[in-house]
């Protein structure tokens, strides 16, 4: 009787299609993957440990660096959790809520554009990469004008926003949101009818809805398997209940289905942005809670109360009552949640981040075992992982 031997090969951590420092050890039978073992942790920076030694305001910049393709979404989840811990959830002004939604959806577009660009590039469609990065650059410009940074935005604050929108940006965002669906059509024109693209992703990376839920997969990766669940609609935060949008669901359970889900989400995000711009009215951008929220600079330099509050918040930090909260938000990649435990001190006693990419990556062996080695690259692309969030 002939004996079969499998071959073990190593993919990553230095590999262009592993989207960062992901190492996969693949056991192969010819070209078929028998076993895939992800190794992670190369980018572990100990964000949860560091956060226990910072005040609630000082933790915020650390959250930018988790999913660096969607920094404002990480900020949003964190500030919502802190606001809930301080009992400020209902005190956030309308304008701050609407701006948060606009920025969150711009971030979703930005993140999905990187997904599409890299996913297509990995599979061999280079042109669409250049188109996606062109539009992403527009969003990056918005980021820069609004927050001052292209990636580490740190724009939201506990209680509202760090600054109001600069003059004239609303028209620019409106123009972008009106034009973006046309760009999505361009991408579709380049990919959807393309025979190579179809062959590479149809029926690849199949995962059933039951398996996906069991493995904790969330976001578009789960909706591509036919599960109609979106936290923006089902547990609304930041006033998402006021917007009219459809949740993109596909029933193919494969990479093709997830591709269509994310493209639809790009269009829906544009719809939400346009609705939010219509709702945007002048008003305060920070909750009226001076003992918790950092005061605006003009109050710090012009009023004694502002100066004292600023001094107290910076030197000591606001103290929530003891308790624990969990807030999950719908990140472009899935549910990102923050679990905060307070012991009444000005620092989080424990902060646990629920990383969407970490948990989605766990489904990778299930999705690529039994398929060809070339499909592993497609599966990594379709899971839309970012290692900064996986390793924390």
């Amino acid at each position, binding site marked *: 009787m002939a004996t079969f031997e499998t071959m073990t090969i190593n993919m990553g951590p230095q590999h262009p299609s592993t989207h960062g420092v992901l190492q996969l050890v693949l056991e192969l039978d010819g070209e078929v993957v028998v076993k895939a073992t992800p190794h*992670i*942790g190369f980018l572990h920076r*100990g964000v949860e440990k560091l956060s226990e030694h910072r005040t609630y305001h000082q933790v915020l910049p650390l959250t930018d660096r988790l999913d660096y393709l969607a920094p404002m979404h990480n900020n949003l989840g964190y500030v919502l959790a802190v606001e809930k811990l301080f009992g400020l959830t209902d005190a956030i002004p309308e304008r701050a809520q609407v701006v948060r939604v606009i920025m969150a959806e711009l971030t979703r577009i930005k993140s999905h554009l990187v997904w599409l660009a890299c996913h297509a590039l990995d599979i061999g469609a280079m042109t669409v990469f250049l188109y996606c990065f062109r539009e992403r650059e527009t969003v990056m410009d918005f980021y820069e004008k609004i927050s001052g940074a292209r990636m580490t935005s740190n724009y939201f604050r506990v209680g509202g926003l760090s600054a109001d929108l600069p003059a004239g940006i609303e028209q620019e965002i409106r123009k972008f949101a009106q034009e973006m669906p046309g760009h999505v059509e361009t991408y579709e024109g380049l990919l959807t009818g393309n025979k190579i693209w179809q062959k590479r992703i149809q029926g690849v990376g199949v995962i059933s809805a039951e398996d996906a839920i069991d493995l904790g997969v969330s976001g578009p990766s789960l909706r591509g398997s036919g599960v109609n669940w979106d936290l923006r609609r089902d547990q609304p935060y930041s006033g998402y209940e006021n917007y009219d949008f459809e949740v993109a669901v596909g029933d193919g359970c494969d990479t093709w289905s997830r591709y269509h889900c994310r493209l639809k989400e790009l269009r829906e995000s544009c719809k939400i942005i346009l609705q939010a711009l219509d709702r945007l009215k002048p008003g305060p951008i920070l909750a009226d809670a001076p003992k918790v929220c950092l005061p605006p600079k003009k109050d710090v330099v012009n009023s004694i109360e502002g100066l004292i509050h600023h001094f107290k918040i910076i030197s000591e930090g606001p103290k929530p009552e003891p308790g624990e909260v969990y807030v999950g938000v719908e990140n472009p990649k899935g549910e990102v949640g923050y679990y905060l435990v307070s012991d009444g001190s000005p620092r989080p006693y424990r902060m646990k981040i629920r990383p969407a990419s970490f948990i989605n990556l766990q489904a990778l062996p299930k999705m690529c075992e039994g398929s060809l080695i070339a499909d592993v690259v497609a599966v990594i692309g379709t899971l839309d992982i970012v290692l900064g969030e996986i390793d924390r």
Partner: protein
Amino acid sequence: MSVQAAVDRLKAQFGEAVVAVSEFRGETTVVVKKDDIVAICSFLKKELGFNFLTDLCAVDYLGQAPRFMVVYQLYSIGAHQRLRIKAAVEEGDARIDTVSGVWATANWLERECYDLMGIVFNNHPDPRRILMPSDWVGHPLRKDYPVQGPDREPYQGRLQ
């Protein structure tokens, strides 16, 4: 079924094993005994619809007894409800049964919990470290593990 109804059914089913129920900011937390954790989690999943394990972690209450709390964040896709389950784990016997047979998600989450907090999960299918190197000594998220690392002097501040 409301969260309250789910908690009532849990109490009716497990009685003594449900130690405490608390609510904070609209979130319900149930503390249970660790010996029954697998049975309780299976019941929550199969009978009460909490089909999605959102997150799993441990909290180190250094200086208190029992020292650790293992925390399970549950979600029900369908009813859209959240429930938090906690189980106390003593320092001298920092072990709890794995729930990776109930939700496959728990596999990596428990590995992370072991890696960073040093909780051992009985019958875990793959009990390796996940974020730290495999030869790492210690569990960094424990409160008695220094933030600057085990082999460096504590940071004294810039003024000294």
